[in-house]
């Protein structure tokens, strides 16, 4: 049974955020015998609450943060006024983003950890090596894949680093988009492989296999086949009797004592009462945007610029998921709405190559992440009518005959891109709103354009009758998902916020484990790396706690 602690109980660990990282921390720490409280700002939903309901989950963003109660302001640079905007999207419930994500589960490559050494300096960017290497994280990638339940074909991606074990589950069934992509990329001399997905291709650890209903991205899985922390590790944590998940608990400050050690956190409960939960150590897993905001809000006499911020880098180097959509229309029906979103990937263009004349690279996948209404609104070619008889006629074939090739592209760390506190706007609890400052590096834009040509080439090689680029123009897009870099990892406390084990340089009993500790963004799909870092960080925390 789930444990219940009193706020006055000094628990061993207080975890803030029950998402991809927080769920893993909860399980690892509680199964090691420690008493854990997890504070989650969102509700505790289960598969019974989820529906095939696009109005609720794509239109109303039912599983993500709501800017009506937690406003966000955005500006391109410091000289502009920040305006209210729907920038930054993250999962806001027990399980966090792992509930509604597409479930792509890519390991970073060996080169991702040492791009500064391999590629060199990029003007205007803070490209740096990680203080750890792929080999340091490999055992934890494997642990994550087995603990959570990942489907894929080990060794099928020739560009991936060495792996100690195959995937625990075989790949998911290939869709028409995967077959077309497979044929086309082979024709072009490339190396397609089955997409590694956090979705069960077979029953695993008491959970049933995927039923191909098609409602993955933006949706919670109704049959528990998506390997979110909600259905995989969080139930294990609760069964230890040592872990309490406390939903609807919105943290407003991490407290510290005179020695500068974290003592717990003050949060608002569902009734907006302030409660102080005590703990021997605090683990922040609130995502790459909210973690930085919380640290900046947690100012004190000892930490006047925010907690763990002696470097001044908390909130800086914000990176996110840049990518572009290419669409293709085919002669026969693909019925891409059936089944998971992605079944084939290539990493041939992944690694940055100075010969291109810019920094960057991209992983490309064959997919379809549209549902009926958002396809009608956003999936049609730009030269198609937007209403009327002809539009209606086109919809009747395009929805079933279209697929996407998506690029997962690079996002350079830049000091000027940040999460900070808005001094003018408050959220519904009276806390300073998140202010996002972000503009693309010229190389990010160059990479997207270069990748788009490759995407269209693949669709044409696949025999598409018509191809087009879709989505928001780069110049108009704001950071939304896959938030990284705002508490970067490093060996030098002046140049980074956390050390190689995700411990804050400035606060010995504060761990920061989520996308915020990323030094570079690789080619997106950060979840596997977030969770590998969580398993590794938990290992370190357990050893340190046992010594103490």
């Amino acid at each position, binding site marked *: 049974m789930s444990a219940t602690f009193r706020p006055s109980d000094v628990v061993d660990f207080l975890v803030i955020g029950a998402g991809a990282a927080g769920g893993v921390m909860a399980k690892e720490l509680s199964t090691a015998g420690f008493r854990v409280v997890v504070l989650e700002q969102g509700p505790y939903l289960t598969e019974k609450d989820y529906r095939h309901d696009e109005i609720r989950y794509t239109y109303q963003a039912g599983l993500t943060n709501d800017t009506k109660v937690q406003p966000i302001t955005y500006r391109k640079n410091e000289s502009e006024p920040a305006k209210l905007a729907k920038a930054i999207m993250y999962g806001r419930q027990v399980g966090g983003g792992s509930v509604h994500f597409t479930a792509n589960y890519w390991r970073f490559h060996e080169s991702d950890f040492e791009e500064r050494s391999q590629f060199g300096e990029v003007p205007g960017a803070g490209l740096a090596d990680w203080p750890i290497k792929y080999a340091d994280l490999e055992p934890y990638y494997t642990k994550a894949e087995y603990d959570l339940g990942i489907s894929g074909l080990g060794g099928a991606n020739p560009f991936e680093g060495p792996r100690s074990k195959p995937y625990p589950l075989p790949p998911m069934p290939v869709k028409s988009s995967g077959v077309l992509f497979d044929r086309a990329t082979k024709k072009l001399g490339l190396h397609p492989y089955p997409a590694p997905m956090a979705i069960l291709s077979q029953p695993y650890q008491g959970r049933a296999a995927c039923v191909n209903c098609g409602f993955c991205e933006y949706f919670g899985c109704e049959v528990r086949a998506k390997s979110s922390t909600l259905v995989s590790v969080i139930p294990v944590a609760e069964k230890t009797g040592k872990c309490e998940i406390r939903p609807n608990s919105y943290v407003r400050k991490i407290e510290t004592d005179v020695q500068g050690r974290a003592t717990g956190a003050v949060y608002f409960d569902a009734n907006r009462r302030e409660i102080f939960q005590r703990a021997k150590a605090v683990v922040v897993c609130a995502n790459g945007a909210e973690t930085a905001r919380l640290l900046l809000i947690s100012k004190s006499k000892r930490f006047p610029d925010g907690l763990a911020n002696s470097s001044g880098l908390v909130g800086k180097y914000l990176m996110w998921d840049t990518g572009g959509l290419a669409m293709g229309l085919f002669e026969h029906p693909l019925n891409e709405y059936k089944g998971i979103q992605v079944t084939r990937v290539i990493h041939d263009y992944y690694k940055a190559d100075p010969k291109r004349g810019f920094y960057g690279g991209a992983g490309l996948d064959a997919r379809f992440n549209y549902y009926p209404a958002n396809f*009608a609104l956003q999936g049609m070619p730009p030269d198609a009518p*937007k209403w009327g008889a002809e539009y209606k006629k086109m919809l009747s074939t395009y929805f079933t005959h279209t697929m996407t090739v998506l690029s997962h592209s690079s996002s350079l760390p830049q000091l000027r891109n940040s999460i900070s506190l808005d001094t003018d706007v408050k959220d519904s609890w009276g806390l300073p709103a998140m202010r996002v400052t972000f503009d693309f590096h010229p190389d990010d834009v160059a990479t997207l354009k270069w990748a788009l040509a490759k995407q269209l080439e693949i669709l044409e090689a696949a025999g598409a009758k018509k191809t087009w680029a879709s989505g928001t123009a780069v110049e108009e897009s704001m950071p939304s998902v896959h938030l990284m870099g705002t508490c970067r990892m490093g060996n030098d406390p002046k140049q980074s916020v956390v050390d190689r084990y995700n411990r804050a340089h400035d606060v010995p009993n504060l761990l920061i484990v989520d996308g915020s500790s990323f030094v570079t963004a690789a080619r997106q799909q950060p979840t596997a790396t977030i969770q590998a870092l969580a398993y590794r960080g938990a290992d370190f925390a357990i050893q340190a706690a046992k010594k103490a």
Partner: protein
Amino acid sequence: MQTTRRLWLSQCVGIVALADIAAAQQHAHEAVQSSTPPPFRTLDPATAAEIDAITSQIVPSTDGPGAREAGVIYFIDRALSTFDVDKREAYRTGMAAVQKKRQELFPGSTKIAALTNEQQIQLVQGIEATDFFELLRTHTLYGFLGNPSYGGNRDHIGWKLIGFEDRMVFQPPFGYYDGEQK
């Protein structure tokens, strides 16, 4: 790989659980289908008829049922009564601007709904670049293609048009090209 007894058992459990869940979900979907159209909660009938005239140009009833038959106007009323209460003002000012445009284009006309089909098309062409039209288009398509439990997409009219089936379980092959490969 050798199938162990434990693995075999776990697969059986998986299949049973799956069948139960699928049955329950299918039941929920059928329940949704049989719901009767709600009365308007926010819109007055005259305004509703005017909005309906425009949404019926976005997805017209040519070559089969469109926004009107799918009950899009009921979805819009539902949206403005619940999750989009804050869009009521946009509808008030937006519809006033559309009426103004109608008078400009067709002096002496009284209602959008009373215009000829060609006149309605001209009117929509005159407003299609506005933010209000984008809101109307968004509402229309969510109402036409969204879950029928919100009052629109009656009898799955929208889903039938685009070839979408709302089911809990699909078996591969899903489409022509993966079928061709088997």
